[in-house]
């Protein structure tokens, strides 16, 4: 059945996101478990919210990185915020980049910060794209797909 196939595909997609380290398995699954009849698209809503909110934080960091000299305390603060946010959806790679960034902030390594930040943005964009596709499929397949296990 097309539907089943679709579901299988979605399942595979998700699995690969886990395998490739984009997403933290436990956290993402937990989000999916929260999905129910009252909030059938809960995960997608959360992810959307994350990306919308993170735009602001990323902008702040970018602006702060343009200043000279760098205000590492401020940068660390922003990144701390971003890290917390990214942990909400289980964005694994993004989170590790932000940890790295904070390490550079602590030692005052401006170059390290900038480099890491670029990497972080890349990872963030990559994950966003993958998730967009994932959700498209999920919506097509219907609510059942998003549940990680039978309710």
């Amino acid at each position, binding site marked *: 059945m097309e539907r089943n196939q679709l579901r299988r595909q979605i399942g595979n997609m998700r699995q690969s996101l886990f395998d490739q380290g984009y997403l933290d398995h436990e*956290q993402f699954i*937990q989000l999916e478990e929260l999905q129910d009849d009252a909030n059938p698209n809960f995960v997608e809503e959360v992810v959307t919210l994350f990306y919308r*909110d993170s735009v602001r934080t990323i902008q702040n960091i970018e602006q702060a990185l343009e200043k000279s000299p760098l205000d590492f305390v401020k940068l660390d603060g922003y990144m701390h*915020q971003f890290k*917390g946010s990214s942990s909400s959806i289980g964005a694994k790679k993004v989170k590790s980049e932000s940890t790295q960034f904070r390490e550079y902030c602590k030692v005052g390594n401006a170059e390290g910060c900038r480099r890491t930040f670029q990497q972080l943005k890349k990872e963030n964009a990559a994950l966003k794209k993958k998730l967009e596709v994932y959700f498209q499929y999920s919506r097509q397949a219907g609510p059942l797909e998003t549940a990680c296990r039978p309710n």
Partner: protein
Amino acid sequence: MMMTMENNNGFSSPRSDAFPAGLRVLVVDDDPTWLKILEKMLKKCSYEVTTCGLAREALNLLRERKDGFDIVISDVNMPDMDGFKLLEHVGLEMDLPVIMMSVDGETSRVMKGVQHGACDYLLKPIRMKELRNIWQHVLRKRIHEVRDIEFHEGIDEIYMTRNGSDKSEDRHLPSGTDPISGKKRKDVDNKHDDRECNDPSSVKKVRVVWAVDLHQKFVKAVNQIGFDKVGPKKILDLMGVPWLTRENVASHLQKYRLYLGRLQKEKELTASFGGMKQSDITSKEPNGNHCLQNSVNKQCDLTSGNHGTQGNKTILQNVDFKMHEGDMKCIAPMPMAEPKKAMNGDNSDPQKSSNKKMGVNHSFGQLGSDLQYATTVPKQYSWNEECSETQMNRECKPHFRPKSVFNALPLTTLPQNIQLDYIRPRLPLNSRPSSLERDNKLAEADMMPAYMKSRSQGIGQLSPAECKADRFPVQPGSKSTNVQGLKSIPSAVWSMNNHSLDQILGGCSESEDTSLNMTCGTEFASWDGNLQCGSLQGDFQPLNVGPETVESFNYGNPELTSEVPTFSYDSLKFDFEYPFDSMEYPVIDQGLFIT
């Protein structure tokens, strides 16, 4: 944002039999993603969730809906206010359990959270299972409150009865009433408020904790308006504290008036007595007695009326304090009526009576004199409002109601800074009815000012002066076993800070307090081992002024100040003799003016 769960009383009743379902949680996090996730998770746990993106908003919500939440979960890092600060505020004002969250799990941060009073610290990403069990914090807190209340009620009761019996003793100066530390204060306050503590899951009353700064605002407002023209509404408006109600202010004002009146009286007494000779005092007693009587009567009336916070009458009555019994015995002269009153009344009784007695409108300047008269107080310290005039207090043990803010400053501090704390000893004094012995012992013991502080570290600083006050054997052979009772008071309860001492000196306002004060001194001694304030039987009723009042007490009333010898407590001696009637001093129960 509020989602109503099955419970649907909106915010009213926290729990039903379905506890923990329906637990009312307030989530504060500036991260919208987490806020959404947490909200969903908590709803899945069948909790009633309200979300907030800003700390200030959360505080406003909490203040608006008093008793509207059972627990708060907050992120540590927020743009408008530090999460730890919010934690402090919530603990101070609402005394709700607070759980902190952060993506940062560094030990130092976690430690900071615990130090600031967080009951738990969760690391993000947070799992559902962690949230499922948060209700335990709520339950635990309630259980502790119940215990505390019962405990304190017992103590208060003991004091109240004691007070009745021994008037003169009450008069004693603020021997460092209960030094209850600020922390304890919180507990204490809660305890008193929660009458229904028997049922941990019952609604917890949110009480107003008249912290030092709050009280200062209050005093400032009163001064601004002019003591003679004050009214709760005016004060409330001036204070600008959003969560405070007119009712809170009114009750606080009443206590304050009593306190002032007491101060004034003391001042007068001091002036007239000069050296506060006992004999003089004695002669005064009759007068005092009258007053006391009146006040006492009134007290009863008053008390029955008001103090909601006083705790459970039932509890009081049920508390079986040996001391109490013992006291009764000792207090021969004391008409049983008194004790009864005490018992029935809420702790506030003493206060009330004191209030009544006070009826004096003192200018604030008088406050400062409180301290002074702590030391010099001759008769004025008839704190034992509870005790009928005759009985005053020998036995009246000050009711130590630990006030949240009461810190007992060691009397050693400047007179002006003496904070009278009147912390009612909540400890079940159960003990030894042999107060008589104790009393005697105490009498000899040191008549020195209860510098509790020096004695007991923890306990608070009922300065030795305070202790001493107790010591003065107010009545030979009196009664009071109060001292004994105090012994058992856990130091935690008595930890008053320095501030409290002032308050004690300054404020023993309610009769209860006064009695407490005096006894405090003695009791404190017993507590901590350090205190060695002889066991005065509660004659001394130190001014039970909570720490908050301390500040106000220092109103630089030069006149008063001069009178107060730095804790020379010689004057304290007189207290015993005076049958101070009834608590002239408003008894501030629990923590200053806590309404």
